[in-house]
């Protein structure tokens, strides 16, 4: 993936290596806030926002702090620190600059702090040895992939909610089965890249 073109990175991030459905990252918000399309979309947007920023910031932390000092093994801890601070910062700024957006994202914003998809993305960017532009593209479209998965899933769950599900499967069991079927469906994109 070292010299992958931006388009390939994009398709790969959205469809082939979808963060939720083939990497199984960020399952918690995927199941937690996917009861309604509207909130799922809000979560997706919040994640996109934070993931893109986190991708860029962790790139700088990695190549301007950790690599020159030869402390690459601190990656995980350092990135968690970066992401947590970033989310806090974004929350503070949003509350001041755009109260409407802040209210729309609501509780999802602080939830992202503990979203493993963000950390996973930061670590993957480094693993693939992406340059800055590739990092930005990969971060943004990985988040778009997350949003796509969660919105699709929420749409299906809305339908399941009103359909006749056998009692033992009501609620989370059927949601998990749905998620696994979606995952299998996304497996079909494997040959694409």
């Amino acid at each position, binding site marked *: 993936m070292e010299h992958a073109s931006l388009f390939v990175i994009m398709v790969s991030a959205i469809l082939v290596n979808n963060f939720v459905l083939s990497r199984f990252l960020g399952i918690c918000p995927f199941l937690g806030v996917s009861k309604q399309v509207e909130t799922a979309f809000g979560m997706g947007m919040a994640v996109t926002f934070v993931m893109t920023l986190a991708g860029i910031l962790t790139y700088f*932390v990695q190549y301007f*702090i*950790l690599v020159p*000092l030869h*402390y690459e093994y*601190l990656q995980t*801890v*350092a990135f968690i*620190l*970066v992401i947590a*601070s970033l989310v*806090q*910062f974004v929350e*503070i*700024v949003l*509350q*001041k*600059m755009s*109260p409407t957006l802040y209210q729309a994202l609501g509780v999802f914003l602080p939830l992202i702090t503990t979203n493993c998809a963000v950390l996973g993305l930061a670590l993957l960017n480094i693993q693939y040895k992406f340059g800055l532009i590739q990092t930005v593209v990969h971060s943004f479209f990985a988040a778009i992939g997350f949003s796509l998965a969660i919105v699709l899933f929420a749409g299906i769950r809305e339908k399941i909610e009103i359909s006749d599900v056998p009692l033992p499967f009501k609620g989370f069991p059927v949601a998990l089965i749905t998620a696994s079927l979606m995952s299998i469906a996304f497996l079909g994109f494997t040959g694409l890249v």
Partner: protein
Amino acid sequence: MTMDIMSILVAAGILGVMGLLFGIGLAFASQKFAVEIDPRVVAVREVVPGANCGACGYPGCDGFSNAVVKGIAPVNGCPVGGAECAKNIASIMGLDAGDSIKQVAKVLCKGDEDKCSNRFDYEGFDSCVAANMLNGGPKSCLYGCMGLGTCVQVCPFDAIHINSKGLAEVDPEKCTACNKCIDACPKDVITLVPYGQLTVVDCNNKDKGPMVKKNCSVACIACGICEKNCPFDAIHVVNNLAVIDYDKCTNCMVCVEKCPTKAIEGDLSKRKKASIIDDKCIGCTICAKNCPVDAITGELKKVHEIDQSKCIGCGVCEAKCPKDAIEMK
């Protein structure tokens, strides 16, 4: 060895410096981008129940707290918190809570299996909504409680149950007037009544008298006897159904006594009686003039007497007495 310790220290140093920088950044940001939040919003948010049920009509308890502080929502706007919550909010806002009377849900149907016949046997699954789709349900009365428990399922407070007679019944102690059962009931047979309201028309049938009588022995037949006998003009027949104006009703239960079909609920043994405190009575005759059933007798400037057999416990005399010389027991 020294090398190892050094690398540990440097690692800690890197993280420490990063943490410090981010911390300073955040501290700076929180100063620079500080949003002034009205401390009253936080205070109100703390005294409301926090169930985010939305019964107030605002999006969750946060939305309600904001609306209260902005002056849009009334301080007694939280039906779940009740009077105590209203009082707390009022003290935060520096207002008088007013009389926020707790409301509770009430199932307006007494037509159990013995009193109201079935048109057919229903053997579908236990859902009032489903049964209602089958030609209005099995009950011969199209307005009554079918007792299949859709309201029981939606109640978040375990306050509504199907009793032994197959009718839904609300536990007024647990009910918080969240309106969930009222929304769920396909028959619209549940309504809100003030907590402690003893006199309630326990019927929801809006058909004409003869038709009602054929199906149910305890239904309101819209005869209007209650309307004529009410001393306070508090009960009226609307749409073939007697409706009590709870603001005017004093729980005197005259209507309960007069109702030919016993459709109006009221425990006559709980009826209060007025009695005069002899020491305080100055004989002004105001009570005697206001008594709707002429149960008070007495001459001017002499202690009055109340005929307990006539007294209906309406409380008018207690309200009118300028010397607080009458109490209701």
